């Protein structure tokens, strides 16, 4: 992939990449009622905004909240109630609290139906790299490795490429791994892509985008999902 191709792609009037919020909205459509879901810090948290209240999806926050609700009104803040991103949240009717040992027991034990995480890179075998890109800062992993190793269904929400145009879907991650072979599906600003035993399989693309054009900005080979 070279800069000219990237510029060509950007210039293509035929398709419009999704915004982060639009990716979250797209992903939210695939979460059925009744699932227990952990949303990673950052963009994945926005997914909750697009699950309508009448569709009961139970959000878990790894700091011990099962049944997390949206941000409180400014005059309704419980200052002891924060999510994993350290923002004030609420508890839904029917929600409950637990300590870290139980919370991560629940996560590691595979009881969540879905975890949505951001990523720097995903490899075609499902390897996830989402916790470190440099050794300049002190390493900080949080709960990412526990969520990635523990949740049977892991979806990634991320831009298809970096700001400078490098593909985040790769044959092999060169950033430090979070977990090996765990990603099941990727929602990007350009496409929805399954990770299969045969590699990346494109389920859908933004309107006007062709598989060939998508392949141009993707380092690993793509095929159409069966």
């Amino acid at each position, binding site marked *: 992939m070279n800069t000219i191709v990237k510029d060509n792609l950007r210039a293509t009037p035929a398709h419009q990449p999704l915004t982060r919020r639009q990716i979250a909205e797209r992903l939210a459509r695939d979460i059925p009622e009744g699932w227990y879901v952990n949303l990673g810090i950052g963009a994945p948290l926005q997914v909750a905004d697009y699950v309508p209240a009448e569709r009961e999806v139970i959000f878990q*926050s*790894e*700091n*011990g*909240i099962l049944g997390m609700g949206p941000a409180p009104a400014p005059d309704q803040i*419980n*200052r*002891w*109630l*924060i*999510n994993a991103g*350290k*923002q*004030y949240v609420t*508890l839904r009717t029917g929600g409950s*609290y*637990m*300590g*870290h*040992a139980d*919370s*991560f*027991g629940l*996560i*590691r034990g595979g009881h969540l139906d879905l975890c949505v995480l951001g990523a720097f890179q995903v490899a075609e075998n499902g390897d996830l790299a989402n916790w470190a890109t440099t050794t300049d*800062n*002190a*390493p*900080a*992993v*949080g*709960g*990412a*490795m*526990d969520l990635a*190793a*523990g949740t049977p269904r892991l979806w990634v929400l991320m831009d298809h490429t970096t700001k400078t145009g490098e593909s985040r879907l790769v044959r092999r991650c060169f950033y*430090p*791994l*979070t*977990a*090996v072979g765990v990603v099941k599906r990727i929602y990007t600003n350009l496409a929805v892509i399954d990770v299969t035993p045969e590699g990346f399989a494109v389920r859908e693309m933004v309107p006007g985008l062709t598989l060939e054009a998508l392949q141009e900005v993707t380092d690993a080979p793509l095929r159409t999902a069966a």
Partner: protein
Amino acid sequence: MINKIVQSMAEAMADIRDGSVVLIGGFGSIGQPNALIDGLIEQGAKDLTVVANNSGVGHVGLARLLETGRVRKIVCSFPRTADPVVFEKLWREGRIELEVVPQGTMAERMRAAGAGIPAFYTPTAVGTKLAEGKEEREIRGRKYILEDALPGDVALVEAWEADRWGNLTYNSSARNFNPVMATAAALTIVQSQHIVELGALDPEKVATPGIFVSRVLHVPYGEPTVT
């Protein structure tokens, strides 16, 4: 009469020795026992190993303790917050040792310490940098690594309600690491917003039974101001 409630910070901090492993509750600032941390600074123990999820915010609480230079090593999952100035500076200058542990593994290692399990296998971190040097083993077709229990000499815990037997409740997400740390330390010291009569806590609702608690100090500080 059993009475674990102490009347002064000095009493609460008695017998904490240099070189101790100190478990400090909280997730960010929520549930972090800042009064006890200040008491520990006042008490003066040094050469400490601190186990905590984060590495402190600004210049208060855990960050203030790090700033004294009395912490030799920190074991944590996420040494990064909105304002981790103190830790970052110490770390860049090579003046503090850092052991990064996945958050759930950290919790489980303390749960193991409290429950008499010396070591356990876990899928978390398999195939990553954080598994380097750890025993890997295949069990029923999947790879796991061996993790050791992580016991503390001292735990500093923040509770919502406490009685004289040391029974505790917590407030919503301020529970976090506090109950598991209470089980994992030889000496568990609690600061509690409220002190209640024995029998006031619902026996079905006690989150930390008093057996895990050594001392309770009443610290009705009100509401946390940062997350």
